[in-house]
């Protein structure tokens, strides 16, 4: 988007903040889409100027006007997807709640699972190597009981042991 458009948008936003006080609750004719229908879409969009505020809860007048815009488009028979696309075209990808999965944005979805799987793999490998070196018990403690001798009902002694070790 061009710089001037942004500027106009931001100025309009702050002007609308100033005018935010006298709100105008309107009753709509029954054939107009109701607030719930509007919010269902607004919930999926983000205020194009505030940081991280969903459009359905943004208290500013600018956002109220955007919600009216959604209502208008709905009454003209636009679908949810069409309205979302319209907002993206007007204000950029930032109005969407999550980055659209294309180009560099794939990274946002790929990195976390890859990192977690890598962590799990490292942990798995570590477990394997520990298991292999398991017979190495010589330096194991003078205090702990040999694990293989643990009787099934050793809860009392185990509890005592654990409480003692703190």
């Amino acid at each position: 988007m061009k710089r001037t458009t942004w500027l106009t948008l931001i100025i309009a936003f702050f002007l609308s903040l100033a005018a935010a006080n006298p709100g105008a609750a309107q009753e709509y004719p029954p054939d107009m889409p109701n607030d719930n229908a509007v919010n269902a879409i607004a919930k999926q969009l983000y205020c194009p100027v505030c940081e991280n505020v969903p459009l359905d809860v943004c208290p500013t007048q600018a956002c109220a006007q955007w919600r009216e815009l959604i209502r208008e488009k709905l009454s003209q028979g636009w679908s949810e997807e069409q309205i979302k696309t319209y907002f993206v075209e007007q204000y950029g990808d930032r109005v969407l709640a999550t980055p659209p999965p294309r180009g560099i944005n794939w990274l946002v979805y790929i990195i976390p699972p890859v990192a977690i799987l890598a962590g799990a793999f490292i942990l798995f490998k570590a477990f394997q190597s520990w298991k292999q070196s398991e017979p190495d018990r010589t330096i194991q403690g003078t205090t702990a009981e040999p694990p293989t001798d643990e009787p099934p009902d050793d809860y009392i002694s185990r509890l005592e042991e654990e409480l003692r070790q703190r």
Partner: protein
Amino acid sequence: MLTNIGYGALIITFLVSIYGIIAAVYGVRKNSPSWVESARNAMLLTFPLITITALSIIFLLVTDHYEVQYVSSVTSRSMPMYLKITALWGGQAGSLIFWSWLMSAFASAVTLRNWSRDKEFLPWVIVVSLVTLAFFLGLSIFFENPFVRFWQTPTGQIITRMIPPAGAVPFVPPDGQGLNPLLRHPGMIIHPPMLYLGFVSFVIPYAFAIAALVTGRTDDRWIRVTRRWTLVAWLFLSLGLVLGGRWAYDVLGWGGYWGWDPVEIAAFMPWLTGTAFLHSVMIQEKRGMLKHWNMVLIILTYDLVIFGTFLTRSGVLSSVHAFAQSAIGPAFFAFIGITFITSLALVLNRWNDLKAETHMTSVFSREALFLLNNLLFMGILVVCFWGVIFPLISELFTGQKVTVGPVFYERATGPLFAGLLFLMGIAPLAAWRHSTAKTLGRAMLRPFFASLVIVAAVIISGIRNPAAILGFWLSAFVASVTLYEFWRGVLVRHRNKGESFPAALWRLAGRNRRRYGGYIIHLGVVLMAIGIIGLELFQTETQGTIPQGGQMTLGDYVITFDSLSNFDTPDGRNVARAVVSVYKDGDLVGDLYPRRDFYYESQQPMTIPGVRSTMEDDFYVLLVDWQPISTAGATFKIYHNPLVNWLWLGGFIFTLGTLVAAWPDHERKTAQVRREKSAYATAKTG
């Protein structure tokens, strides 16, 4: 005058910190206890000095010194006294001073402890604390000076300077801009201090960790010394997060408590690594393993604390340009980079000293399950960190800003949180060192069947959402396991020692408060999970415009719009306040007063909900809009938030558990068991 005193004290504190760092390092090099003692005195001196600075700001705030830019930006004449005081942390410059003040208090308290057993740590703990303190003081002095004043130059221009140019005269605005209305809430009085206390107290275990690395005393002494500090830090951070959630719920007017906003996540990230650390240090204490990992965790926590402080106040996340333009952005970036790399270099340097004394013997042992817990916490951290910084990366490479909203975080972390709950259920049943699938399965049996009863009740009550059923089952399972652990311990004492049940419970918990405090924390988490499941999966909402006397329905509830009044208040607000009656199943259950405050000073509207709160649900009404002239109609948004109060109750139990675990007691000789063992191992291998 007062600005000069405050600023002067700030500069002296900075110089004293620098001196302390040099004296400590020199004292170690020359092996001179008197230099180290001098460094310690410098550390202690920073506290009274920075107190002078902080009190100067508070005095300027409460006495309406609007010629000071900071005072003018966060207070106004109409604000009550308590808000003027809390305005100390209402803006960036004041917050940084507040941070330094707390940091100095904590570090001074640490230097006052008994060091006879840990003399070699002392100079390095001082160095780390003072480097951190000096960094924040430096930010205040060079970039975010809270004492800068307004001046009018001979040409009539208004400028802000600490030292005025020749010919300039002081300029005093008639009134200040006032505190951001969002911050004028009791929650804001206590939430930031809690968070900051959590932040600064995590510096202490980090300082000890670095001291251990530098001195080469890498046994678990540093962990034992800082165990309580870590718990206290964690308690404050947890409280800060819960109170922040409560504040959002009460003030932000979107029916939720957590919006996955970068600022919230910034405070959550050190909590994640801190929680992982709390668990994994136990493996080191009991088994002498994971020494590298614990170092990495505390280093991460420290740098995330610095990162969090930076994000919370600077607003740099709004855009990469904001980051480049803000003076403190690069400074923070450099400090985080330097401390992180230096710390990791120290870990690498001591790599061989930090080798594990024993090996993992079973994948079902408690230490193995704790490792899985660490993996899940790290997974959540990666999701959070990546989600927070990705918009910046995207903007940097494509010029296009994107939003990473709650949907992303919820989907990515939901399964990880579920995994953590599950581990919380089985880990307490697993023995240290050795557990088999068989013994663990047998231990799980009874709690597992108990939890199935709850699941049956949930299904009978008509809930069919699979995520909810899984969530409730996990909560029930963890609760059963935890209560079963208490019950078994109490029963043993009752049988063996003939103690009454309450006495047995009291003494059992007293024997190992960390263990049983931890279990109480787990119960708190379960309650919080129930609240979160209720709100996340069963929240319903509706919005509509109704005339006076009209009705709106949501589920079993009906509201009627009775009246609306619109008036100005002496503190500069225009308030529109609606009266609605709430009916549940046809019976009147009470009146609610949702309102909308408009702050003239900042031209900012605030939506304050009217809430009817029970353990079953919250009925949350917002006044979205109204007709100003006739007051004939108004738009309301109503949320039905089932079970949300369990979240706050859970937070309370959680705090209680942490207090039980962290309450001071004398160090017992039995705590040495593993240390002797490790000494034995060292003797044998060395």
